[in-house]
């Protein structure tokens, strides 16, 4: 039996990351590719801190965790 592959993050996925002292959730809108330090992959994520205007942030793959994927994918 083979090992379960860790699913990579894709646009449309809901992810979670630490923003200050708060865990926030956002939606991946773009895979920027291996632009980060030591070639790590960066993702553009749209999130909202509160009821304010949505923000976009670029986060490396090792600082986000996958929460959910779009239905049907």
């Amino acid at each position: 039996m083979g090992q379960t592959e860790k699913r990579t993050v894709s646009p449309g996925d809901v992810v979670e990351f630490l923003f200050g002292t708060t865990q926030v959730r956002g939606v991946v809108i773009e895979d920027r590719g291996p632009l980060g330090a030591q070639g790590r992959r960066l993702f553009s994520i749209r999130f909202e801190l509160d009821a304010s205007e949505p923000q976009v942030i670029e986060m490396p793959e090792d600082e986000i965790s996958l929460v959910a994927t779009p239905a049907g994918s």
Partner: protein
Amino acid sequence: MPSVLLQRWQTTRVRELDEIEEAHRSIGGSGRGRRYATQQINHAYAMLLSSQFQGFCRDLHSESVDYLARATNPVELRAVLRAEFTLHRKLDRRQSESWQHRRGFQSVRA
């Protein structure tokens, strides 16, 4: 380790620019004289070069921010720093002007 975005420029981006240059050459030839038929290709080439350069600058900014954030402690500040550097980044949205390229990199200049 060579920069990923430099490799991307030297491969993918240059290849795309070469394609339109090839189209220009195939229509206009390489002999002497003015090329009227290639006017629109010239305009397209200028736009493509501008967009490729903007994409390169955007990639460079992203890479720079990641290096800075990665070196930041405590860990809780990293995402906040990232958001601050990329908030309303003009390079993400529209055709940029030279001052926007300069402004985008002023915040990450050491």
